[in-house]
């Protein structure tokens, strides 16, 4: 019996209740009826229907109010309005208050069956969406746990052994070998840092970085980011040009994550630029805001992809040299910027290039 889809019909006309019940008979439904709004709302709670038909014009509380009360009980219940005065305005009004659709009286059995079917489908979709959303949240949390343990542990063990080997082999290694060992340690350290940032971004507590905010010079941030991408850029024969106004006010922020945000944006620009082209990083102060633009003349982003660009795990195209996309850099970058009360926007034209723009408020300290 649990498989039956529960439908509640609220109408003051007994004829309507009876005929609707009859129409649905033999279908996979469990139908209950109520002859006024009060009873209807009560039944909505006790009977727990997935779909409710409500007559708009009833004695006692109106259909509009019933819709609102049902919405308050469980917004996933699908409500369809039966209206005797099939004016567009009352139907629109009902839909504004959360009704899914409306059925003008009089209606044929087929019309009623059809709209019932649509209501059932809608309810199924709503429930599926809710389940998926919960699953997504669970995945997000699980992912955070997996990242922290499964990725960090092996890297930590490798790094610890590199530390140990540096000491053990201090007398035996040539300077060049020591240098390579040091570079390995730096690379692994970078990786560990990135994992920590992702972890924070994904587990949603990136705002924790706010605890360590202090006046930060964006000049330093940008130059650091550019420096760390220089090798990649040179390898692809791409020139990174910086055009930064020297005398910018500092922003209240966290240097490590801001640098990471810049590395992500400039890194993307390099990734999606063709050899021989230029990537430009501009920064200037406009009133109490600093605007940083990362401009490339690379492959650009299709218009239909733009709305999803900043979502986690939206995997982008591979770069011009086959670089892979993790689908997480831009989402983390956006979260970092937003944790700094800033805004990240994008303009792009396929084939012509993209401009990513960060707007950050300058620190309030020297304005007081």
């Amino acid at each position: 019996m649990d498989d039956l889809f529960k439908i509640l019909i609220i109408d003051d006309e007994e004829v309507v209740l009876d005929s609707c019940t009859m129409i649905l008979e033999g279908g996979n439904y469990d139908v209950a009826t109520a002859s006024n709004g009060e009873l209807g709302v009560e039944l909505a709670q006790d009977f727990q229907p997935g779909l409710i038909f409500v007559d708009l014009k009833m004695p006692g509380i109106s259909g509009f109010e019933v819709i609102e009360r049902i919405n308050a009980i469980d917004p996933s219940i699908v409500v369809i309005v039966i209206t005797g005065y099939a004016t567009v305005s009352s139907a629109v009004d009902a839909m504004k208050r959360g009704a899914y659709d409306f059925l003008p009286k009089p209606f044929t059995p087929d019309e009623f069956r059809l709209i019932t079917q649509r209501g059932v489908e809608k309810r199924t979709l709503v429930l599926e969406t809710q389940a998926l959303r919960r699953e997504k949240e669970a995945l997000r949390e699980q992912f955070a746990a997996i990242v922290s343990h499964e990725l960090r542990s092996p890297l930590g063990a490798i790094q610890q052994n590199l530390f140990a080997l540096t000491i053990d082999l201090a007398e035996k290694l040539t300077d060049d070998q020591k240098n390579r060992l040091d570079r390995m340690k730096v690379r692994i350290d970078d990786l560990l840092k990135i994992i920590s940032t992702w972890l924070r971004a994904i587990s949603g507590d990136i705002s924790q970085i706010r605890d360590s905010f202090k006046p930060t010079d964006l000049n330093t941030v940008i130059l650091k980011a550019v420096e760390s991408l220089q090798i990649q850029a040179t390898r692809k024969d791409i020139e990174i040009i910086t055009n930064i106004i020297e005398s910018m006010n500092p922003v209240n922020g966290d240097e490590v994550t801001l640098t990471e945000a810049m590395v992500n944006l400039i890194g993307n620009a390099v990734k999606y630029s063709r050899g021989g082209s230029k990537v430009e990083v501009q920064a200037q102060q406009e009133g109490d805001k600093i605007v940083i633009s990362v401009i490339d003349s690379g492959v650009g982003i299709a218009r239909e992809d733009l709305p999803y660009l900043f979502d986690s795990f939206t995997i982008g195209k591979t770069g011009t040299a086959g670089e892979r996309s993790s689908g997480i850099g831009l989402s983390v970058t956006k979260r970092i910027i937003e944790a700094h009360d800033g805004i990240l926007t994008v303009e792009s034209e396929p084939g012509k290039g993209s401009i990513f723009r960060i707007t950050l408020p300058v620190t309030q300290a020297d304005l007081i």
Partner: protein
Amino acid sequence: MSAGKKLLIIDDDPDFVDGIRSILLSAKYEVDVAYNPKDGIKALQTNPYDLLLLDIMMGRGAEGVMVARKIRKDPKLRETPVLIITGIREQMAFLFPGQAVHPHFVPVDELVEKPVEPQLLLEKVSNLIKTAEERKAKA
């Protein structure tokens, strides 16, 4: 300073243990290892140690915490200084809300994150041993 000092590492990751033991050996410490909480407790009860290096995330969860609780309940063992080594600081905040940086399992302890820079590791180890010895001398 480190001559004759005996340390115990309890950690279930043999590779990480190798890395950390090698650094401690290079500083002339004597080092024993237990690769699970059970062997760790047994070792602590049979031999005197000057310091314990304890991993928190072992086995199916924070089994290191169980070790720490057992040590705290034992009036003799709780005088052993403990260097807690955790995969990630946030885990500590999660396990012990409000005392993320310094867990205070036992009178003398400290927390470091994996991986540990050799200099920091040796510094923490020698400081903890010194603090525990001073405590003992006062008592």
